[in-house]
């Protein structure tokens, strides 16, 4: 249950972050690279980034 909630939060935060990131990527990329794949790639990267940042830390001994 906890993992599902964590996953859902990661996806939601990733989606919110992906908006401005995708917009920046669109204006920064050359015109020939633009396309529908850009925003969805950014979504995947943003969700992965959020999951990485929010991963549980190991307890040090």
């Amino acid at each position, binding site marked *: 249950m906890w993992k599902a909630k964590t996953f859902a939060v990661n996806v939601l*935060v990733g*989606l*919110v*972050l*992906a*908006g*401005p990131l*995708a*917009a*920046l990527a*669109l*204006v*920064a990329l050359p*015109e020939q690279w*633009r*396309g*529908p794949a850009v*925003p969805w790639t950014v979504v995947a990267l943003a969700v992965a980034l959020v999951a990485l*940042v*929010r991963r549980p830390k190991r307890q040090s001994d």
Partner: protein
Amino acid sequence: MNVRRALPLCLAGLFLAANAAIAADRDPCRQMPTPQAGVPQSRYAWGGAVTHLIDDNTGTAMRLRRLPSGALEVDIDGDRLEVRKTLHANGDFDLAIRADDDLFAVARRGEHVRVSRRNRTVDLGTETLGEADLDQLQQLLAGSGAVRRFRAMRSMLAATTRRTGLGVAVDMIDMLIGVLKGEAPTPIPATTAPTVSAMSYVDGEAEFNGPSCYAVWEAEVIAAWNDYAECVYSFPWYSPLREVCAFAWVIRVESAWFRLIGCSSIPIKVEAFDVESEDIRR
């Protein structure tokens, strides 16, 4: 406040700082071509709404894009053939077809049409068009390699290309040539009429049946960026009002982003299942 709670604030600050820094290094006019005299400029410029297509049969590269002035531009690059048509928002158009050294050009401005080929020009008034004008046009177009090559290319286009917006643009150019040559107009066959599937809409390929979700988002993002750059450059570099520009940009692109997500969701449609036609094992 622990690190996890501070993370969203840090990221938001990073966004504001990063995009302000990026904007400071960019020319605000980079996304928009230099405005031309006499052409009205829309506030929300479309900087990147472009459709590319390569025909399967002929290998012809085609491109349709919307210019910041609101005009539509079609570029066709085929085997020793170049075509460019620009349709302005007020209905005027420019058409140029080049094959080898044969350049055929047509321009319409209001009630006047100018047709030129090989240092010869015919000026026509659409309201005063007479038989003598048509004779002149036919002499002008006689033996045009550019027109012949264009029509050959059109006749070999794949059916899938003909059904796209670019295919219809090719048909329209062909009809215009037919009118100039005094031919009877031929209707576009129903089999090549544009069709669109739900998935092509989702995939961002449905330019001919209204802009796709992606095209709308892209246009809004480019327009937001242009407005943001304009806003940033209207304040001195030390002014904190630049951050307000960044905040407005973030709000605008987030709004466009969630509209894209809502627009792109896969449509769920339950079809009535035809039991009679199924071979059911008993």
